[in-house]
């Protein structure tokens, strides 16, 4: 067992699960989307991205690309969240919530690709 692989897999899956947890629920209802979960998703996604740095294989490059996409989407979601809460006079309306959650949905797709890549990598790894 390779500890590096464990840590890597842990963060990739955790990024996807946290993202999924935030995304699930009625698109327009702010009560069903926890801001702490979004925060955790952002942090874990960033860590997963850094873990993918410096891998020279083709699959490593795609890994990094999906992670960067997820980061971009999630950071856009947090910015939209901040804008709705602090700047917009309407506050966290149903429309704003829908925007935030759908952005995180895009990130979820990227994270799912990441997990698929992880599975493919694991399956294609032949021992001995």
């Amino acid at each position, binding site marked *: 067992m390779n500890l590096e692989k464990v840590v890597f897999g842990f963060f990739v899956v955790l990024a996807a699960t946290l993202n999924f947890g935030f995304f699930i629920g009625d698109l327009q209802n702010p009560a069903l989307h926890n801001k702490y979960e979004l925060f955790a998703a952002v*942090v874990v996604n*960033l860590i997963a991205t*850094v873990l993918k740095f*410096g891998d020279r294989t083709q699959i490593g490059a795609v890994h990094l690309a999906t992670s960067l996409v997820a980061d971009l989407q999630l950071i856009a979601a947090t910015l939209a969240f901040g804008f709705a809460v602090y700047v917009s006079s309407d506050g966290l309306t149903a429309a704003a919530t829908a925007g935030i959650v759908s952005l995180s949905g895009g990130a979820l797709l990227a994270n799912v690709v990441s997990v698929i890549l992880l599975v493919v990598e694991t399956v294609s790894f032949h021992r001995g």
Partner: protein
Amino acid sequence: MAGKRLFRRNEQRRSRRGALRLAAASAAKASATIFLIMRRMRAPLIVLIVIFAITVLGLTLIPGQDAQGRPWRMGFFDAFYVMSYTASTIGFGEIPYPFTYNQRMWVTISIYLTVIGWAYAIGSLLALLQDRSFRQALALQHFTRKVARLREPFLLIAGYGQTGELLGHWIDALGRRFVVLDLSAERIDGLELDSYNADVPGLAADVRDPGLLSVAGLDHPSCEAVVALTDDEEANPAAVMAAALLRPEVPVVARVTTRTLAERMQAFGSPSTVNPFDRFGDHLRLALKAPASYQLLTWLESGPGGELPTRGLPPRNGRWVVFGYGRLGQEVTSDLRAEGLEVTVVEPRPTHPEADMIVGDGSDPWVMAQADLDRAVGFVAGTDNDTTNLSLVAAARRSNPSLFIGARQNRPMSAPLFAAMEVYALLVPAEVIAHEVYAQLSTPLLWRFLREMPAQGDAWAAELTDRLISVCGKRLQALWKLRLTPQEAPALSGWLAGGNARLAELLRNPDDRDEPLHAVVLLVVRDGQTTLAPDGDFVLAPGDELLLAGWAAARRALGTILFVDAVREYVVTGRRVPSSWIWRKLSRVPEPTSR
């Protein structure tokens, strides 16, 4: 015939593909290091992210109060804002409301955590920037980009010691580009301090690596020659080999110090080898046989601005004494003996016995007495130690002031001492090599001239030297090449086709044709046949290649004659012809026949 050509083309393509692959491998090596750096930044970045996450999360969870004392919790944006300016030690204070004690305790912990995180991350980054392998990778990338962007022909100089530096300055003065590879990083750094007109890409790298040679331009279409000048007996053949296998069509010049090495190199294509000791022996022979030829040779090899060397008169008969029987001593001795001269050799540690050899140190009075300098005519101090050589020269001169003295200078620092000694024939290996390579590469016609010139005899050389002095003065002016083709000399086509184009008619001042142009034609090449220093009655033909020596002004004037019909007409016939279209129409002069 066709099949042979096809085969040849295939061969070339194959070697070019090999070169490209090598260059790609080197580029991959450079990017591999960048990946390694990214890997090494993983830990600091993750620590930083985790610390930020913990401190921000803590701030949002810890209860605070607003200005009215009501319970209030910080949002993620506020928390991130506060941590950002706190962590970066900017410290705007407690925003948006003054903190409670709970919050302050947490912020205190956060400050220490984040400072450690930043210090770790920035420290790691700076350490990486200082990292040798990282810097080498950056330098390699930078160098690769610079070489790939070269659009003009350039030389690849492998080995940038004294010789490389001299050669580089002359090549630069010619307005040509070159790329430098050297093992020593100091010499490559020195490139930036050297005042070159053009930018010189340089890389500290092992010349023996063919991949690096490819990156340095061996596979670049504009690479016109490779010069191997390292002082490493292994590196030069390696560079020659790589050049011969990867780019068989590119000329190669290599420095060698022994004959066996030169023969080893001949196995790969036909690189031109320069052996300074062999050249010194040849020059000494030439100086003995034909002092004027030798004088002309050294003058033309000295590069632009070189002053006329004095014509030495070495003794043609008598006994010579050679101190030091190393690479130089052996060459000189065999050359002198080939001239029928008697030679006494002195060597403290002989490797193999030799006729007329005295074993002993030159500083030993008994050895000096044995060498019998009083009755010798020539003396060569050829050890590889400058101090020894200088003291030998001094001792020899004391015992016999009329001796013809030759000496070898090993280090550039000793130059003023040897100059003060006023040695007649001084060998500076670095300079000999640089002169030779320069003559071969700057103008191939000059190289041809220098090789064929000694056969013309001493009186001929003396006469040509006098002609050069009368035209150009005692400093060597520009040397340039001219091709009488319709592209390079459009105005001459008609005149040359006439079959009566005398050289003397062409070399006249365009402002006043009674005055000759300050230039001398050293060589004319026609269909591979050479004519050395043709006189004024020589008849030129289309396609001739000319090597000229003269003033830069003469070169410009000749350029005008070659391109402007009216000027050519005046210079050749003395008739003033209007050059503009309107004036030609008005004066009803027929169109020039040459166009």
